[in-house]
């Protein structure tokens, strides 16, 4: 069963003015689509990998044979990271986390402002291409991390519940070199209900 490009859960223009429609369309139909295509090419002919879920592939990615390891890390990670990214954003979102997620953030970071500061710094300081993450680690604790390129937190045993793409393709058409402005604007798109859903699922 080949992997497929998921549809966006909203229109390409839904995240404007924070993320423009042209960026969303290229990001989804070109960049994400290429990761899906190349992931399918990489695992084709490897019968032992055929039935595995994306999460299973990534959890074991570092132990794959040399011939396909980096392709699965790059393109499998690219597929998983973007699939999460689309879901944790939405039209007219933003605001503050609530309920159990807000409790978890307070317990882990002291308060929401401190969490935001740490997450934004992780996104701003990632040199080159990569991602900032809020993950539930193996012990069930919330942590802010950052990964290079398309490396997935799943490879480290983490469950990502919020991710921010800081590859230049995610923001260059609208923000050019101003990555901090993109990061600040992106908070206005965060779908905290979805993040809370992922947080609860990570603890089951």
């Amino acid at each position, binding site marked *: 069963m080949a992997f497929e490009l998921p549809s966006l859960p909203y229109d390409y223009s839904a995240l404007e003015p924070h993320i423009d429609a042209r960026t969303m369309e*290229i990001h989804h139909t*070109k*960049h994400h689509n*290429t990761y899906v295509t190349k992931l399918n090419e990489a695992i084709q002919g490897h019968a032992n990998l055929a039935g595995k879920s994306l999460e299973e592939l990534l959890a074991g990615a570092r132990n794959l044979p040399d011939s396909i390891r*980096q392709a699965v890390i*790059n393109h499998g990670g690219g597929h998983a990271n973007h699939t999460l990214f689309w879901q944790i954003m939405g039209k007219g979102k933003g605001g503050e986390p609530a309920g159990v997620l807000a409790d978890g953030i307070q317990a882990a970071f002291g308060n929401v402002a401190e969490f935001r500061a740490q997450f934004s710094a992780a996104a701003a300081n990632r*040199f*080159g*291409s*990569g991602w900032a993450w809020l993950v539930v680690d193996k012990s069930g604790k919330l942590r802010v991390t950052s990964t*290079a*390129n*398309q490396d997935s937190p799943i490879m480290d045993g983490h469950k990502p519940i919020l991710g921010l793409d800081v*590859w*230049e*393709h995610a923001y*260059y*058409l609208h923000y*050019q*070199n101003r990555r901090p402005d993109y990061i600040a604007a992106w908070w206005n798109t965060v779908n905290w209900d979805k993040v809370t859903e992922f947080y609860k699922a990570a603890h089951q």
Partner: protein
Amino acid sequence: MPITLPDLPYARNALEPHISAETLEFHHGKHHNAYVTNLNKLIAGKPEEGKSLEEIILSAEGPVFNNAAQVWNHTFYWSCLKPGGGGEPGGELADAIRRDFGSFQAFRDALADAAATQFGSGWAWLVAEGGRLKVVKTPNADLPMRHGQTALLTIDVWEHAYYIDYRNARPKYVETVIDHLLNWDFAAKNYQKAGG
């Protein structure tokens, strides 16, 4: 003596239509400039402050290395491009390319492949190492001088180098640079300095 941003060796619109003035305005005026500014801030009052850019690159790690190497990489990259460039080199460098790659076409394919397959941000290079020519790729700020190699030519494949003009079509940008912009006179000078 602070590190300074060098001028572009041509006008901002000189590489059009292959690389737009808008791209160079951001790439030189913002990205390259930010590496210079960040580096000077990072080394202010530190032992690195009196060192040359090359000395800093060869000894530093982390953010100081990243910013110093990116200052060097971009200065080098500007000289690797020129209006009316591309084509094939002549003289000793052409002979060396045939000797080490088999043909100019094989070299061209190797450089295009390295540039297309550098995953994430980075650079593709023609280098001299131990009297031989090689094509290599480096991630992020990494560069040949940290690997005992002499850079002859480079292509910047950070997305900021081509996203305004080519979007996700990195291979098209790379082929355009190779065919229309590469400055073989500059490469030949670097080859001579490397000892041929």
